[in-house]
Structures are given as structure tokens and as C-alpha cells.
């Protein structure tokens, strides 16, 4: 993982709350088996709207997303973080993040910085009145600067340390391999194991077929 200390880039005001992971990346894009190449999928449903912020020239090259409360709610899909990164975002500012999204960000070197609602509002105003303004996110001092707004942000110490050092979690954990083995040795023997597999007798499953007569697959659409 790349080390993150400070980043400066165009700020993108996303004046919406509850931006869930289905909005960040709809499920149809989750069929891919790669870890990169999701930039086209980011905010896919909104990208078709010419008024959407990322469709405006001043914000297109943005790399710091400034969003409303409860960003990243819903699904655990790490694809949401990959899509933001692939588009070019290095940091997301919000007043509150969903737990799993925040965790996923930390693993992928995307900074999820918690900023107070008052400061988010001030930053939005700068970015909306002066489109293209750059935002500096300084992880060392935990401050964000946008125009004449300088605001503190929160990120937990451990995530900050890992981001600044660019450390890989698995490598860190495997330093304690002996302790994992010791735990395994004292684990209760009756705890379940998936192997050898146990199950009820296998039965043939009949494949359901499309309905041909009544209730045809054509979807009735109410306008």
C-alpha cells in the first residue's frame, strides 16, 4: 500500500446524506473478478445526469470528495472503495461514515476523514462558490484546508499510522503467528468444522422454468 501523508487536489462537493454503497457502485458492476478498473462504475446511476457534480468540468478531475452524513452505508462491498480510488479520489470527508466502508477505506489507502457538520458546510460553500478550489488533507496534522477554511478532522490513531506507513495488515498479523497457533491449540474441540462435510442426504434439485402462459416475464411498468 502506498504511504499517505498529505494530499492536495480538487474538492468535489457532494451535498447528499446517506450515500449508500449501492449508489457508489451498483451491484451489476460487482460481477467483475478484478480489483481495478471500476472508475466507470462510480456513482453509475447519477453519472447520466448532466447536473451531477462529477459531470461538471470544474470538478471532473476531483480527488477529495466532500460528502454529507452517513457516507458508505449498506453493503460491505469493497468495490465502493476501489471505484472511488480508480476514479482518482484519495480522500473522502464526511461527518459520519458507515463502519464497514471506513474499515475498507483504511485497508486500501483511501482516507476517510471525519469532519464536523459546521466545517463540512463551510467547505461545501467554498467549493460551490469557487468550483475547482483545491483541498489539502494533511494526515500528519489531521487538518483539512480549503480556501480560507482550516478544519481539524478525525481518524483513529491506528488507521493513521498504517496509512502513513503504507502497511499491509496480513503481514502485520502474521508476525503473531505463534499466538494464533497457541489459540488454536486451546480451542474447544466441539466447536464446529466445515470439513469433513456433513449434511442431509443429497437430493436432486429441479430447475425452475420461466412462466410461459400466465404472468409472463414481461414486466408491467406503471408510468
Amino acid at each position, binding site marked *: 500500500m502506498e504511504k499517505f501523508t498529505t494530499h492536495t487536489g480538487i474538492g468535489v462537493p457532494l451535498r447528499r446524506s*446517506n450515500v*449508500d454503497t*449501492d449508489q457508489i457502485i*451498483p*451491484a*451489476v458492476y*460487482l*460481477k467483475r*473478478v*478484478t*480489483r481495478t478498473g471500476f472508475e466507470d462504475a462510480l456513482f453509475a*446511476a447519477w453519472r447520466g445526469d448532466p447536473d451531477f457534480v462529477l459531470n461538471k468540468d470544474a470538478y471532473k478531475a476531483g480527488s477529495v470528495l466532500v460528502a454529507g*452524513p*452517513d457516507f458508505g*452505508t*449498506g*453493503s*460491505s*462491498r*469493497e*468495490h465502493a472503495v476501489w471505484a472511488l480510488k480508480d476514479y482518482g479520489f484519495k480522500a473522502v470527508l464526511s461527518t*459520519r461514515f*458507515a*463502519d*464497514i466502508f471506513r*474499515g*475498507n477505506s483504511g*485497508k*486500501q489507502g483511501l482516507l476517510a476523514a471525519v469532519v464536523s457538520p459546521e466545517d463540512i458546510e463551510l467547505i461545501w460553500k467554498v467549493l460551490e462558490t469557487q468550483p475547482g478550489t483545491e483541498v489539502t488533507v494533511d494526515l500528519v496534522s489531521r487538518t483539512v484546508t480549503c480556501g480560507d477554511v482550516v478544519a481539524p478532522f478525525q481518524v*483513529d*490513531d*491506528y488507521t493513521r499510522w498504517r496509512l502513513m506507513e503504507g502497511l499491509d*495488515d*496480513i503481514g502485520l*498479523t502474521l508476525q503473531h503467528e505463534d*499466538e*494464533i497457533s497457541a*489459540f488454536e491449540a486451546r*480451542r474447544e*474441540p*466441539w*466447536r*464446529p*468444522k*466445515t*470439513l469433513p*462435510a*456433513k*449434511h442431509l*442426504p443429497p437430493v436432486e*434439485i429441479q*430447475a*425452475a*422454468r*420461466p*412462466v410461459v402462459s400466465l404472468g409472463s416475464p414481461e*414486466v*408491467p411498468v*406503471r*408510468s
Partner: protein
Amino acid sequence: MAGTLAEKVWEAHLVRRGEDGAPDLLFIDLHLVHEVTSPQAFEGLRLAGRKVRRPDLTIATEDHNTPTLDIDRPIADTTSRTQIETLRNNAKEFGIRLHSLGDADQGIVHVVGPQLGLTQPGLTVVCGDSHTSTHGAFGALAFGIGTSEVEHVLATQTLPLQPFKTMAITVDGQLKPGTTAKDIILAIIAKIGTGGGQGYVLEYRGEAIRSLSMEARMTICNMSIEAGARAGMIAPDETTFEYLKGRPHAPEGADWDAAVEYWRTLRSDEDAVFDAEVVLDANELEPFVTWGTNPGQGLPLSAAVPNPAQIPDENERLAAERALEYMDLEPGTPLREIAVDTVFIGSCTNGRIEDLRAVADVVKGRKKADSVRVLVVPGSARVRLQAEAEGLDKVFLDFGAEWRNAGCSMCLGMNPDQLAPGERSASTSNRNFEGRQGKGGRTHLVSPLVAAATAIRGTLSSVADLEPALQPA
């Protein structure tokens, strides 16, 4: 020292306590894997030359991206087929048990784990899926993880975790006829909001919770994530033990006795302190439905679409305005007058046998509304077999519904089962986000009973609205 249920399970899995702000390292008892969030994790293992540390604590199924029709034929969508084949190849290469499409134990991971008896009290359970919280119904600490964490668990069978806060949610009283566990959890989410549980493990308790079956408890824990919580738990009791006994992977003989003895200790101590507490009265609950685009935007069915102008908080007001525009709803419209095009019955929230029985009891001998398409999708192949053994499939087909093979189906707009743009559904699933069930689709979250009544009347309805009235079973 007095502890909560969540803290007890946490302490029992401590491999290493974190120092200087570092997270604790916890052992993971059960890792559930599916096709969508695992390919990049296996690829990571391959690139680093790592193996799966504990294939014997890992199990995979195909669910999110699978069709629910023609499952014996090649999957038509080539990208989907590649993803399924990737899981099959990975399972083979890394020695992981996989229940594939067509296998009697295939189904939604969160339905398969409990039915095999793998989900047990006091375990730590993870899966690359946010609805892993379902397994908390057994008193397990169960939560969804991202793909990097999936790789981490595959490689180490542990996870570094920062401690959670704890919230007690006490549901007193008893549910009235026509209301269900789904109405309890929708009411809780409407009360505390989609961010209200953020940073917490929720523990559901109280008389109403104790009276619920395991399947109903799973419905409640399943949607903990919709309140922003990582996990939801219910202390195990006789109902839990009864459900587990005799299941394929449940302990047997002396092991069973040892396990039950331990399971009985898994409850919050009388003097345990929670970081937050919420109380709800089940007696006051009515069938609940959502009107907006997040699961917190819900109201009793007897209410009307809210007027955003009357919402004091600016963010909530803007969100409500956007939601009504997306949902194409007018403030003041009685929720009962909202007509739907599709009724979806299934998902890890409400795709278990009890849910299907509840629906069958309502629709038996009736016909669906002409204007409505009805999909009944069992949560697992075993649920499908059980339903067929009880003749429920006939009830659904006579009603005019489609009876499908098991999978996530229309819950998530990924496989072929999707809403068309502008189409409106009453759905027993868990998320009503914009486009969740298909691009442009509009979702109202409901209980299985409301889904059944809605399929009959064509508009959002409760069983109390049915004519002739439903005879008590």
C-alpha cells in the same frame, strides 16, 4: 467483572490484545464465502504465495450472482458465469467446501450456515457480506467484512478489530396478530436511524424477542446493519438449542452437553453496562412499510407519505425530498393506496421456511391481483425442498406466483431478477436504496404477511385488509 454478551464472545476469541491503540486480534470460528466478494481475495493469496490457513472453518456457496431459473443450463451472462467459475476454481485450488448451484445445500450463505448447524452460539462468524449480522440470532458475534478482510481471514483465520460499543434494544410486550419480526426491526431502524447503530453491537432482548422463533430472530439480527450497526445479537436460550439439536454440524453426545453448558453462560450479566439503551413496546407495533430510499424511512402502514416540509432537520428534509422524487410519491398519500407492480418474497431477511409458510397461509385458495407479478424465492435449496414437501409450491403456483430456485434473487439487482426502471415493488428484502432491485426500481420494504396481502390486493396492505377476512390458522 460484569460483561455484556458481545464482550464475553469477544474476550473468548482474543488471540492478542492490542497495545498503544492497536486493535485486538480476534480468532474467527466460521468464514462464509460467496462468489462476489471473494475473487480478489483469492487472487491476493495467490500473488503473495499464501494458503488458506483453515479450510476446515471455511464454507462457500453461490448465491448473489446466480439465476433462479434454468439453473441446470449454462449461465447466460458471461461475466456472471466467469465469476461463478472463478469461485469453483478457487474452492478447488484452496481446498474449500463449496455448495454450487444445483446442490441440495446451495443457497444464500446466511440461510445455509444456520440450516447446516454451523452457526452456533458464541462463535465469531464473518462473511464478505453485510448481512452476516443474521447469525447473531444464535448469540454469535457475526459481522460483514470487505474483500481485504476476506483475504486476511483466509490467510490468518483472525481479524484485527477495534472494540465496539454496546447497545441494548429491549422489546417489551407481545406482537399483535398480523405483525412480525420484520415490523419490529423496521420500527427500530425508523426510531434510531440508519446511522443510529454506528459503532455499536446491538443486543436485542425483552419479552417480545424471547417469544420469537429462531427464524424470526434471524430476520431481526439480519437488518442490524441497516441501522448502521456492525452486528446484532440475541442471547441463546432453549429456542436456540432446540433449533440446533440434530442439525448436521451440531455437536453430539458429550460434546452437545459441554456445548450447551457453555452456551448457557452466554448472556449479558444482570449488572452489565451498555453504552446505550433503546426500549420499544411490541404491543404498539403495526405492520411497518418503508416509503423512501433508506430503511430508516419507514412508517406504520396506516400512515400517509410524509411531507418533507414538516421535517425540521435540514439533511433529513433534503433526503426525504429526494426520496419522494425518486419514489414518485406525493406527500399525504395514504400508504395503503400505493399500488405495486411486483411482490418479491425471499432473501436472507425473509426467505426461510417459516416465512414461506406464513405467506402460504395468507394466499391459500386466493388469486393474486392481475396487475401484480409475484416472485417466491426460497432462501436455500433445502428450504425449497421443504416447502415442496409441505405442498407450499402448489399454493404459490395456484395463487399465480412464480416459484423459483434458491438465491439472493431480486434483493440486490445483480442477477437476472430485477425491477425495470420505474417499476414499484413490495419486497421482503432488506434495502430500499435507489436502484437496489434494478436501475430505476422503487422498493417498499415489508414483512412476508404484508407482501402476501399486497399481492392479493395490488396495493400495500395488511392481512387485516383482506376480504373475506383471514381465518386464524
